[in-house]
């Protein structure tokens, strides 16, 4: 009787041990910032390459339609471009002066990186995470193109996110709308005259608004003020547009403002992105 009980206990212990090991392995595989191993990376790259081939005719067709619809504005755009070319020389001279000024201001404000320190690399979005696990995109550029983890991703409308996982020919982009404790971004709220610094502390999926906190209740912020990256923290360079202030409330203690920001980027309609690569000179 005692023997049977011992054997039952041993079996139970064994099952429990297996369950714990399996859970530990599973938790490890979803560990934050885990890099793919060579085998996983190879499979992912193969899939992305196949998807790129399939995308080519689809994207070509889309571009053709877009080009056709934009033909109407060609004449007007041509005139604008001609006048812009005439202004080029004076703009160049102005740029040299501005660069020097930026360097001086960076030192004064203790900002590590600004947009001029970066090279731009364009990439195409291959897929979104259709399993709803993370708020993530996969792009067609990887370590082969010089992409590294933590690089900043933008598009023509503003900040999109940062690179999380990198394989040889593809990478994942974690969107700024991800509610993750590692995803806090230092921002500047400005109306032209005043500049206030706060932190993006979350995203309301239902309202589609980012939440900025850490700005004193006595500070003046108005609806429509622009929100940019501040450059503090060293991850995101300063001056990238994030969005506009939509509405303002205060925290429970009435001490600081909670600012809801409408992102300038449309996260459900991203087909092309630009990655900011630190240039060697900087």
């Amino acid at each position, binding site marked *: 009787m005692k023997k049977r009980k011992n054997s039952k206990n041993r079996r139970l212990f064994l099952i429990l041990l297996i369950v714990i090991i399996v859970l530990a392995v599973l938790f490890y*595989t979803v560990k934050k910032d885990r890099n793919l191993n060579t085998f*996983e990376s190879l499979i992912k790259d193969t899939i992305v390459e196949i998807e790129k081939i399939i995308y080519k005719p689809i994207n070509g067709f889309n571009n053709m339609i877009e080009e056709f619809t934009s033909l109407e504005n060609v004449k007007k755009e041509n005139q604008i471009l001609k006048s812009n070319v005439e202004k080029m020389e004076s703009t160049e001279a102005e740029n040299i002066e501005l660069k020097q000024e930026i360097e001086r201001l960076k030192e004064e404000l203790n900002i590590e990186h600004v947009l001029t320190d970066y090279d731009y690399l364009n990439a195409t979005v291959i897929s*979104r995470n259709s399993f709803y696990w993370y708020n993530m995109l996969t792009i067609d550029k990887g370590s082969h193109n010089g992409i590294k983890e933590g690089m900043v991703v933008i598009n023509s409308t503003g900040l999109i996110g940062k690179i999380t996982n990198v394989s040889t020919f593809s990478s994942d982009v974690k969107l700024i709308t991800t509610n993750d404790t590692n995803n806090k971004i230092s921002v500047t709220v400005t109306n032209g005259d005043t500049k206030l610094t706060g932190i993006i502390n979350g995203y309301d999926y239902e309202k589609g608004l980012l939440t900025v906190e850490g700005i004193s209740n006595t500070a003046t912020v108005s609806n429509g003020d622009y929100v940019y990256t501040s450059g503090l923290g060293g991850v995101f360079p300063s001056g990238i547009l994030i969005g506009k202030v939509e509405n303002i409330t205060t925290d429970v203690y009435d001490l600081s403002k909670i600012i809801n920001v409408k992102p300038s980027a449309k996260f459900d309609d991203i087909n092309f992105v630009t990655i900011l690569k630190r240039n060697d000179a900087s």
Partner: protein
Amino acid sequence: MMVLSIILIIFSYLFQTIFSNYIGYTYQSLSWLTTLYTIISLLVIRPYFENDKKYLMILGITGFVSGISYTNAALLNTCLFLIAYYFSKFFHFYFPYNYLTINISTLIAIFIYHILSFLFLLAIGYDHYSFKMLLEILLHSVPMTIIYTTLSYFVVDSLYHKFSLREVK
């Protein structure tokens, strides 16, 4: 039948990937056209497999590949695929395969997948979304699950009978 099954899985996988670029697949904009096409294809081909081992191998590979592609957690994704399948298998233990029951079992499998992944993400505290959001994801996946299941079941069943294909043994 094996070739047809593999074609359907690859087509569904690519369809899901390409589709994700044109409709709302992010939390910000859930679309009524979103569902897990890969899981649907796996369940639609199930009645044509007599050999359980071969079917589980295909299911495992699909789960692993889509896990690497979308979640970077292939092992967990494969486990979720397996659990979702076993729930559907349990359902078909009582109900034979037909247009109605296959729709119910794909819905069960997709719901199970979303609920389990939600609980797991909640447990590790990684970019979790609200319970209300989970309900929205489940609700939004219903119409396209029914449409795609019915369509693919019809196509597979028609081809199976038309070309007198053999079940996978």
